[in-house]
C-alpha cells in the first residue's frame, strides 16, 4: 500500500520525537511497520526464519541510524531501502556459503511432516513464488515492491536509486520472465 499523507505525517512525528530523545517513539514506529516489513522480508528471502532475522536486523539498523535520518525521503522509503540492502547481503552470504534456505529442503529430509504453513501454500502458489525467486534481483525487487508492497514506480525508483523509466523497464522484464518461467 502506498503511504498515505496521514501515515507519512505520523511517521514524521514519530521520527521527530525519537530524534528529540523520546525512546518510546521508536516502539511505535516498530508497531506501525513491523508486519509490512516482515512480509517484504519473507517475499525477498522465502522463509520465516530468514524473514524474522532480517526484520529484526532492519529495525536494529533503523534504531542505530534514526538519529541521523534527514527526512530526504519518507521513512517508509528509507526503511524499505534498508531491508533491500540487508536482503542483498543475506543472498550474497547464502551464495558464498552455498547455504540452502530451509524452505527449499523437502520436509522429509528434515524428518518432519508438512505442517500448517506448508498446507497454506498450495502447489501453484509455491510455483509462482519459486518463479519469482528465480528472477534477477533488481527485477524481483521491483516486482515485489510494486505488486505486494503496492508502491508506485516513483517510490520504487527512490528506494532503488534508479530512474522511474528503469523501474518500469524492470517491472516489464520481471513479468515477462515470470510468464516464461511459470508458463502462464
Amino acid at each position, binding site marked *: 500500500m502506498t503511504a498515505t499523507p496521514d501515515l507519512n505525517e505520523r511517521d514524521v512525528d514519530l521520527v521527530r520525537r525519537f530524534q528529540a530523545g523520546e*525512546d518510546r517513539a521508536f*516502539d511505535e514506529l*516498530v*508497531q506501525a511497520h*513491523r*508486519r509490512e516489513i*516482515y*512480509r517484504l522480508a*519473507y*517475499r525477498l528471502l522465502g522463509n*520465516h*526464519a530468514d*524473514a*524474522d532475522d532480517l526484520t*529484526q*536486523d532492519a*529495525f*536494529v539498523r533503523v*534504531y*542505530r*541510524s*534514526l*538519529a*541521523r535520518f534527514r527526512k530526504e525521503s519518507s521513512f517508509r522509503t528509507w526503511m524499505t531501502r534498508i531491508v533491500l540492502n540487508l536482503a542483498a547481503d543475506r543472498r550474497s552470504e547464502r551464495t558464498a*556459503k552455498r*547455504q540452502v534456505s*530451509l524452505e527449499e529442503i523437502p*520436509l522429509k529430509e*528434515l*524428518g*518432519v*511432516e508438512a*505442517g*500448517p*504453513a506448508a498446507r*497454506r*501454500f498450495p502447489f*501453484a*502458489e509455491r510455483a*509462482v*513464488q519459486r518463479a*519469482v525467486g528465480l528472477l534477477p534481483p533488481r527485477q524481483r525487487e521491483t*516486482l515485489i515492491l*510494486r*505488486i*505486494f508492497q503496492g508502491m*508506485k*514506480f516513483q517510490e520504487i525508483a527512490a528506494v532503488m536509486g534508479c530512474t522511474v523509466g528503469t523501474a*518500469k523497464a524492470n*517491472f*516489464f522484464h520481471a*513479468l515477462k520472465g*515470470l*510468464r516464461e518461467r*511459470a508458463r*502462464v
Partner: protein
Amino acid sequence: MREKEMRRVVGGTVRRCGRAKELLPLMLVGEASAGDEEFVRTHLHECAPCQEESERLRTLLGGLATAEVPDPGEVYWSAFLPRLRDRIADKHPHRPIRWTLPWPALSVGTAMLLMAGALVVGWQPHSNTPFQRMTEITGRARPQEIREAFEKVYPGTEASLPNDRSIQVLPSANQMQEALDVVLPADESDIYATVRALPPEAQKWFMRVSYRGAV
C-alpha cells in the same frame, strides 16, 4: 507472432503491438497515462493476439496478488518488540553516540579507563553474534537440558509435542541463555537427537543455528 508480422494496417489504423505490449503491464497496475491507456484499449479492441496477451497478464497478476505470506501469529507479534529490544541491547548498548562532551578526548580517556578496569575484574566480551552465542550454548548442553530449556522458554511445549506444531516465535539469544544457564552443566551432547524430537519450527531454528555455526 513476430513484430513485423503483427504490425499491419487494418481499417486505416496502424497496429502497434510492440508499444501496446510495453504499456500493457503499466495499464494493468494503473500507472499508464490517460493517453497511453486509451491507446492500449483501442489497440486491444482490434488485435486478438494482444487481447490474449492481456488476459494472460491479468491472470498472472491476479495470481501474484493472491499469493499471501503466512502470518506468523499473535504469539510471534507479541514477542517481537521485547526480542527486538534484547537484540538492540546486544548489538547496541546505548543510543547513538552524540559527542555532547566538550572534549571528545575526555570520553575516549574515560572509555579506556573503564576497559582497563573491566580487564582487572576479569570481564570478557560476549561472542560476536547472537547466533554464535546460541551455537556455543547448545554445543555445551545435553539433550534433556535443551528440552527443559525450551519448556522454560515456552511453557507447555514439551507436554504438547505430538499435537502442537505451531511454535511460531524463535527464542532470542538472551532467552536461551537465561533458560540454559539454569540447567546447564558443562557437557558434550547429541544435539540432533534432541532436535528431532522437537516441533518442526523448533527443529528449523536449530538447523538454522547449526548452519550459521557450522558453515
